[in-house]
């Protein structure tokens, strides 16, 4: 091995180490998922949520338009009449059953767009893995009480 080669190699290593050393003090670009949150764009479309009004009433009135708009038939709604004494939503009608099949959903957001009361929205939760097929069918209770209420409303 000649000396020249040796020095050349050492310089290359030094250059490479320089890059390493330069970034040693920098904040990493990778994220320690799932221990850390990742930044999500405001218009990201994740797990659905059913919203409520400030007074606690459900926004959903069970009109079934999301169901009609859904291209994959992921949504099933069964409407019922409100008890005038203890209404669940404003007006006469509420959703008795609201089921959303995540295995079918393609997260296109058509339901959001169809909703006349901005009740169903696609939230930011994307970690939706589960062990049982049936657990992928979200009930109204699961949709109404999201773990991560991080939602922005996009006016269309």
């Amino acid at each position, binding site marked *: 091995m000649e000396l020249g080669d040796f020095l050349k190699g050492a310089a290359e290593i030094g250059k490479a180490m320089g890059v390493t050393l330069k970034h040693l003090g920098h904040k990493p670009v990778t994220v320690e998922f799932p221990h850390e949150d990742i930044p999500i764009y405001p218009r990201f479309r994740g797990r659905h949520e059913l919203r409520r009004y400030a007074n606690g009433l459900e926004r959903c*009135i069970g009109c*079934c338009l999301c169901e009609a708009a859904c291209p994959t038939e992921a949504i099933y709604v069964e409407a019922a009449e409100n008890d005038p004494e203890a209404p669940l939503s404003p007006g006469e*009608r509420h959703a008795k059953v609201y089921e959303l099949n995540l295995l079918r959903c393609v997260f296109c957001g058509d339901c959001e767009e169809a909703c006349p009361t901005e009740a169903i929205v696609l939230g930011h939760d994307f970690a939706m893995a589960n062990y049982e097929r049936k657990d992928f069918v979200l009930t109204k209770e699961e949709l109404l009480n999201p773990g991560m209420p991080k939602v922005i409303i996009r006016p269309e």
Partner: protein
Amino acid sequence: MTDKVTITINEEEVSVPARTLLVDAARMAGVEIPVFCSHPKLDPVGCCRMCLVEVDGPRGTAMMASCTMPVGDGMVVRTDTEQVRTVQEANLAFILLNHPLDCPICDKGGECPLQDQTMRFGPGISQLIEPKRLAKKHYDISDTIVLDQERCVLCWRCIRYLEEWEDKPQLGLFERGNDTIVDIQDGRPVDAKTSGNIIDLCPVGALTNRVSRFAYRPWEIERTPSICLHCSVGCNVRLDSRTHQLRRIVGRENMQVNDQWICDKGRFAHAWVNDENRLATPHLRKNGRLTRVQWSEALAYVAERLAGIREKYGPDSIGAIGSGKISNESNYALQRFMRAVIGTNNIDHRDGGDVAALPTGLPALSELMKPQYGPDPQVDTVLLFGLDPSEELPVLDLHVKRAVLRGGVKLIIAHPRKIELTRYDGPYLAYLPGGESTLVDGLVRAVQDSDPSEEESPVYAAAKLLKESERTLIVYGPMAVRGESGPGVRDGLARLARTAGEGARLSYVGLDGNAQGCRDTGVLPDRLPGQFPLDDVDARSRLEALWGCDLSTSPGYTYKQMLDSQEMKALFVNGANPAAESPDWAASLEELELLVVTDLLLTETAQKADVVLPAQGWAESDGTYTNLERRVQRAPKAVTDPKSRAAPDWMIFTHLAKQMGANWPFSDAHSVTAEIARAVPGYAELTWEALGDQGRQWDAGSAPEVEETAGRASEGTSESSVGDGDYPLSLVTGTVLYDGGTLFSLTDQMHGMAHGPTVTLNPADAAESGLEPGSVVTVRSEQGELDLTLAIDVQVQTGCAWIPESLPGAPVGALINGSFTQRVKVERH
């Protein structure tokens, strides 16, 4: 009438009948004119102004309401000009001024003419910034209809329907100008028997169905064209289903049967279809309790027990009760099973062999509808004998009313009660149960009488009408011809029809949905399929060849005889509930060695059974049904409960026959229909495909003649209606529309409409007895007693006590006990 005029619509010439309304002429020419108030079945009123079109006149072009304007020869009409479009936009903007636009929660949304027309003809933008008018929302105008006054566009369709068809103006317009609202009169709920039709008529969501409220969306339901089975009119309906559940029933147009109207029972009383208590598995009695078993076990048990009983006591110890509520296929399979496999004629249904019927039913329902729709009336006088269409056949009632109001048809009514139709001019002939034959004889005598004009009595007034009319239709129901005196009354009526003149016709109508089909398919102890007598050589040889067996010629027991007789050892009860009719029958069912019940629910009879087999209802399996004018109609499968193991009745009997050694070639309901076509000459061409969506009438000419007895109707019958001291009142029973039957009472929303357990007396009788209306009284007959609430009504004649059949908790059978007339007394409880 067939004069044609030529008009020009949008530069195209069309030829239409004279006096056609412009809006209809445009429809014929394929030009759509938007309308709200105009409806082909209602008189024009011209109040919504949506249909304005340009018409050239002597004073230039003018905007005219096309729904009130008859066409004139040479008329020039334009519907597509800028002017017309501007007016349509302005009109829609005006109509929408006060419309709340709550489409997302409105049941009409998706099938709403206002939505459709706003999208097509509307302005597209709203200029309204002012607040909308507020009025009553979700306001119940009856137990079954909800009114939303805010959504109403004041088209008057509901008001006009109730006035023009029901002749019951129960809705009206109130207030003026911007405050105008539709409301009920004086807070009295709408109670017309066909009031639900205003829901179908409403062009917006102002009137909605309370029973199906929020249960469906028009875009997600499956629509099955079917028929209604609550009565024998056989109205055409559409079944709307979703997720294996029947969500809603709406009327379907059939101009030969029901126009487009259906009654409220047919529209709203359907909760039983999806009831959670429907039988879903076969049950077998083990250690005194009904236990769920597999089909194979239940059928093997029945087959083995039947074979044993037949060997021990002979085939005539086994009987079967069919039903006018189940399909032709099921009834046919049942009677074939009894006749060919068991070898007995012990097969009947309620209102079957005990009733003196005629084989062909009404000539045609459309004849009664002709006064409005056709130029050539076939009927000018109707005599209703022992039939109350308002309670028994509501859509026939609608046709009769229309015929009277619009067609000038004269009405004669003979009934023990002063029924609702007696409000129209015409003689009302009252009789007491048991006095039918006397009345018929009196009528015949009065018609024969040379100068009846001197007499003032209703009988002579009726006779005069009958003599004067050229096309009389006499219609009688089962109530008048039950029991021993039945054939006499029937023959008396036949004599009356002959005496009344050439054009007079007589017809019998049964009441159950498939009463006619039940007779046609041979569920009668003395008639083979096709209603041929048991000794008819042709019919016998045809059926023996078809079934590959010899047929018994000895007549079987009738419904009543089977239940009264001690010799019955085994009984099939198929869709009937005799245990609820009479306590004695309930007791005699307990005595049987084998009772097999096929039904939808665990009825009183099923609770006593040894084997209960779950049946599918009319909405769950294909079937054909024959209505009161011999029209065979299809009811295809509309819903299925995926968890239920219920089977159609014909399939149950096919499997049972197989267990007993007979191999029937039935693979599906259509193959049974095809065999009926071979067994019954009248049904020869009526295959499933041939029936179509509108059904087909079988030819009355193929039915056998009825032999008449000679002599007067009242001869040989005992006059049981004569009062005696102990039991001063005559018991009148009959059918009411809103009874306590299982098919009705399972619809919770209609509970308030049901007839309560009451006995109704004439106010004079009640006053005489010193009893207070509303108090609990005891009704006693020689046979038994019942505790009921007392009501008074002038509809009930003096000397009568009126207790409807099948009331919840009030089996009137306890008083009758199988006889057909009875005397009662009413006492303080």
